[in-house]
């Protein structure tokens, strides 16, 4: 059942107030414990603070889940032809998808910790697409010296990609693979060679790798390069494209989840507009890259 935005905003506000109150109570407990003699009453403050934080966080998660499942699901399917938004699903083993759907882009590093959620698929101007939020972390070891002067090793997971990965049907049939990368490098056993195109600014902005030079020139027409530059301009420093098996893979690192609620940001028309902008970006991709110009494939 789709409720209005105020319903979710009200619950989200309760959750935020609960967490803030809990933090304040915890701070008060610490302050009083330091400046005055400990009293049993302080323990009550601490427990109450913890309960408020716990309940507030739970309510926030619940509101987010409900908002995605009830409101966004219907909102997004109204915006996109055959559109379906499945918050629990991602490029993972649930419902027939697989992390390889991300690694098949051949430029995203394999992660030690892999999360994928908020799956959205549909058809735009006759072009099928799939997309999902992906959060990837690698395990790193950090050495540090403790207070006693001993050198110790600490393991920690570091996020190296948090954003959205898209698959689009591509309008040209081609042999070989092409990668157009900004902050990534090829991660495949294929023999990729760097290629320089005739567009100087494009070469400055992107590194282009290909297994077949002709294919790079075939896919990356002057107009197409302009369009990729435009997409990059809207998301500077964070994009990667690959053209493999007649598919276009597009990865956009945002350092945040696309559809998740953000603390202290109101769920209102402005928030909805930001969701709308996310969908519009997919439309613009199809339009700018002329993916809908399907004149090269035979019926």
């Amino acid at each position, binding site marked *: 059942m789709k409720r209005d935005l105020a319903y979710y905003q009200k619950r989200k506000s309760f959750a935020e107030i609960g967490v803030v109150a809990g933090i304040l109570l915890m701070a008060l407990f610490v302050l009083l414990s330091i400046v005055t003699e400990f009293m049993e009453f302080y323990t009550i403050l601490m427990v109450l603070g913890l309960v408020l934080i716990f309940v507030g966080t739970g309510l926030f998660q619940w509101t987010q889940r409900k908002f995605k499942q009830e409101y966004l699901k219907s909102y997004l399917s109204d915006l996109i032809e055959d559109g379906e938004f499945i918050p629990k699903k991602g490029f993972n083993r649930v419902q027939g998808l697989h992390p390889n759907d991300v690694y098949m882009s051949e430029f995203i590093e394999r992660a030690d910790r892999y999360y994928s959620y908020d799956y959205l698929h549909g058809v735009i101007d006759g072009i099928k697409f799939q997309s999902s939020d992906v959060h990837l972390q690698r395990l790193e070891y950090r050495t540090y010296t403790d207070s006693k002067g001993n050198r110790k090793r600490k393991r920690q997971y570091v996020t190296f990609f948090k954003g959205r990965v898209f698959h689009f049907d591509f309008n*040209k049939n081609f042999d070989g693979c092409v990668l157009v990368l900004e902050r990534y490098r090829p991660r495949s056993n294929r023999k990729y060679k760097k290629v*320089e195109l*005739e567009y100087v600014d494009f070469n400055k902005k992107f590194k282009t790798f290909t297994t077949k030079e*002709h294919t790079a*020139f*075939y896919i990356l*027409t002057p107009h197409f390069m302009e369009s990729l530059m435009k997409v990059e301009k809207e998301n500077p420093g964070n994009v990667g494209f690959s053209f493999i098996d007649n598919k276009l893979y597009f990865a956009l690192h945002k350092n945040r989840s696309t559809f998740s609620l953000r603390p202290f940001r109101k769920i209102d028309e402005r928030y909805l507009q930001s969701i709308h902008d996310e969908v519009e970006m997919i439309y613009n991709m199809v339009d700018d890259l002329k993916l809908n110009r399907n004149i*090269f494939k035979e*019926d």
Partner: protein
Amino acid sequence: MPEYVIVIIIIAVLLLIPVVWFIVTMNGLRRLKVKVNEAESGIDVALTKRFDVLSKMVDTVKGYTKHESETFEKVVKWRQNMPDDMSVKQKEEFMEKMNQVQADLNLVVENYPDLKAEKVFTNLQRSISDVEEHLQASRRMFNANVSRLNSRIVSFPTSIVAKQIHMEKQPFFEAEPSKRQDVKMSF
């Protein structure tokens, strides 16, 4: 080690440096030349493909108009009189002749809606668009490689090596002024 041996080694190394540099530069230039040749053969393949598709299209419109068939036959005869390894200039000319046939065909299609609706012909039009894209890609790849080779040939000190091995600037594959934009296809 006696001093004179050290002096000899230093002189030998000093003499060797320009020799090694010459060989490395020469190989680099030759590799680039090979890439230019490869790109040129890509143009040949694309031109041949375009010629084939165009001949199928002409066959399809034969029943509708004679003029285009005659124009195309002239192109066929012209091609037969050309050597197998055409120069870049001749290839440009060949492309321009095919552009003309294609432009004429587009006009024919406009006048015959039945033809426009024929699936075989529509598929051929798609093919020719794709072949045209491949031809443009080959042309751009060729020109990019020629540009890289030419800029090395004219840059000092590589120009010395280029002169020694008689390597000269290569001509670009230019599109005719009227065809600098993509060939407009009407569907």
